[in-house]
Every structure is written in structure tokens, then in C-alpha cells.
């Protein structure tokens, strides 16, 4: 497990480090949504696959934004497990794989994405609240606002889909029935 006992200010002392975190977070999100889209495609859940591809595309734009903000700066090279995501080993928008289900519906997909954005809000808020460097704090607060905006957009998007019933994962013709 990643060491979660350290204060992130020990790691995020400069805006370059914060941008490296932000880039890793967005790139992981692209990677994860693409993987989930492919999983759904393989299992013929095309509606949710398309939605995950769309989410990956949106996250790709966030990657471009961070790269643009990083222009002219030298970001530190950190290995995947050297990032300290505070309360979890995975990046806030990267830890969805084990929550997937072949019968999941668009509502669930957006819920996963929303929870990721909420974790990102909490992460950057923690960084801002603990920052000793004014520039880091300012940038972290901007990132909080940005991620919060994503949460709100996803909430609006989710309203278009009815919340599934509790038995949404019941499969009357399961592909892997016990014989």
C-alpha cells in the first residue's frame, strides 16, 4: 500500500509538483475510462461503452489543459507509486476498475465519474489547505474550482438518466450460470 501517513505538503512544495500531480490524475482518468469503455464493448454494453469513451475524450481535454499550463516548466518525474494521494493508493480519478459491472447503466458510469471528481476536489482542497507556498495554494484552489465545476456538470448529465432499481444487476439469463 502507498504510505498515506505523510502530509502532501512534503511532496507538493512547488507549482511544478502540483502540475505533475494534476497531469497524472487526468492521464489516469483517460486511461481508466478507456479501459472501462473497452470492457463494456467486449460485453456488448454499447450504450455505456460510448459513454465511457465520451468521458475519456473529455478527460483528454483536461490533459491538454494541464500540458498547456505546464509549458515552459520542468515537471518532476515521479513513478506511479511515488504519488501520494493522501487517503488512497490510487489517483482520485483512477480507481474505478473493480466497481465495474457488465450490466451497469449510464447512471452508474456517470456516478463513477462523479465520485472521481469529488475525490479530486477533496484532494486539491487538502493540498490548498496545507500549502505553505502561496502559489501552490492559489493553483490548488483553482484546481478545486475546476474539479467542482466538473462535479456539477456530471450531476446535470446524470439527471438525464433514471436512477436504476436496486435489482439492476439481476441477470435472468446470466452468461456464466453455474451448471
Amino acid at each position: 500500500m502507498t504510505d498515506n501517513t505523510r502530509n502532501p505538503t512534503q511532496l507538493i512544495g512547488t507549482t511544478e509538483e502540483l502540475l505533475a500531480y494534476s497531469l497524472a490524475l487526468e492521464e489516469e482518468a483517460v486511461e481508466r475510462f478507456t479501459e472501462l469503455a473497452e470492457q463494456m464493448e467486449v460485453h456488448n454494453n454499447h450504450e455505456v461503452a460510448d459513454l465511457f469513451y465520451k468521458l475519456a475524450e473529455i478527460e483528454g481535454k483536461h490533459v491538454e489543459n494541464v500540458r498547456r499550463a505546464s509549458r515552459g516548466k520542468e515537471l518532476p518525474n515521479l513513478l506511479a507509486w511515488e504519488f501520494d494521494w493522501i487517503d488512497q493508493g490510487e489517483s482520485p480519478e483512477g480507481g474505478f476498475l473493480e466497481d465495474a459491472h457488465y450490466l451497469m447503466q449510464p447512471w452508474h458510469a456517470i456516478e463513477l465519474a462523479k465520485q472521481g471528481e469529488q475525490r479530486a476536489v477533496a484532494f486539491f482542497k487538502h493540498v490548498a489547505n496545507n500549502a505553505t507556498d502561496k502559489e501552490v495554494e492559489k493553483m490548488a484552489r483553482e484546481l478545486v474550482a475546476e474539479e467542482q465545476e466538473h462535479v456539477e456538470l456530471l450531476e446535470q448529465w446524470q439527471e438525464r438518466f433514471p436512477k436504476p432499481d436496486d435489482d439492476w444487476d439481476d441477470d435472468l439469463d446470466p452468461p456464466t450460470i453455474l451448471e
Partner: protein
Amino acid sequence: MTNATTGTGLKAREYKSGIKPVWCPGCGDFTVLGSLTKALSGLQIAPENVAIISGIGCSSRMPTYLSTYGFHGVHGRALALATGLKVARPDLTVIATGGDGDGFSIGGNHFLHTCRRNPDMTYIVMDNQVYGMTKGQASPTTEPNWEKGKLTPSGTGINPFQPLVIALASGANFIARCSSSDQNGTARTIVEAIRHPGFSLVQVLSPCVTFRPEQRDWKKLVQPAPVEATSDPARAARRLLTDKGLFTGVLFKGNRPPYQPLLEPGIDNIAELDEEFRL
């Protein structure tokens, strides 16, 4: 080293073949695939210098999904194949992958003797305590009172195989347990396992969400072991006696020299090889 996510050099995704895995959504093996590619990226080993060898089972499909060399072999024989390859090509990074049934039942004998032989390679076992590909039968690591298997409706009633204990007793040189719920932590452990000389066993608790849906809760139950790795087998054994199977981390790092027989020079061309097999 470079950044698996943001740096230069080979990125984790470049170790993937592009073939879409057919595992069930939610399966822990997806995360292990991600851990493995992050580890290889962290080590910056060129894909052509890596060989992933497997047997049969869901998790044994791993070589298909990687851009490295790979061999999807015979049931239970991943370690025999991998040992042969490592002996013949010691320059390669050889990694065997598979599941608990393939590794500890069908391949149980090879497991014991690979630990004993101690070739310099890594074995990643995605342990879900069930035969998933054949629709949910009890495996060697299934708990005795699991009653959902059609073949064992009253449970197996027998003690589960203890892979880490057996590995330690048989001479494995590096022993660790990870959880697929921690992709980055598993990647870090795989790096350590590859770097450690000799035979490294990495057991990854990897839920089968189809036949063992209750394993989705593993991510809430696993926790880092409260102790550091030891090089003392006796201390490692004592720790395992109090282990409930849900502690993660590196347990044992031994210092036995790896098995690597000297290769005798001999056959230099096809004609000489042909001569060897002439009846």
C-alpha cells in the same frame, strides 16, 4: 527510471498489446495488468527483453494483453516453461503469471520445485480462490466452508493450500502479497520482486466478481502488514502463522543465489542441431 504516467521513455500503456481483455468487468486481473505494465515502465525494460509465460485460466490470458514476448502454455506448466526459458536466455526478464488453480493444483509440483530451484524470475499469482474459467469450482486456496461450488455444495471441508508458507518452506527467495485494489502498490512490489535475485512469488488477491462476488469486499479488508520484510525464514514463518491472509506487503527477502546452470558451448548451427536428433 522514468515516470510511468507523465515522464519520458516507455509509458505503461506501451506495454499493452491493444487486444481487449475478455475478463468480466470488475475482475481484479484488469488491475494486475495495469500494475504489471506500470512496473515494466518503471523499470524501463524494453518489451522485447521481457517474456511473460502462463498456463491456463482467466489470469493466464495475461501474455495476450502485453506487447512483450509471451507464451500461453499448458495447464499448470507455466513455471516449467519459464524456468527453461530463463536457463536458456538468462538475459531476459522472465515473468510467469497465472491463477491459484493453475499454479497450486495442476502446477503444484512445479511450484514446489521452482521455489526449491530458485531461478531468477518472478511469479505473479492472481489468487481468487476459485476456478473461474470453468464456472466456479473450489480451488486449492478456497476456504473449507465455501458452499457455492456445485461440486462441493457442503464445502470442501479441507484446509486451503497456503502458498506463502509453502513457498517459504520450499526456498523461494522473495515472497509478497498484494491486493488488486491497490494498483500502484502492487506495481511497486512487482518492481521489487523483479529486481530481487532468485525466485520471487507475488500473490495478488484478485477478486472473481462473477463466482465469488463477496470478494468485492476484499478491498475493505486488506491492510498493509504491520511489519517490515525479513531475510530470516524463521521470523517469516512465525509471521505467517498469525497471518489471516489479508495482510499485504513484502514478507520475505532471502539471499540464496539463483539457479543458473552453466551452458555448455556446443551447437552453433542448424546442421549440428539436426545431427543431435538423427536416429
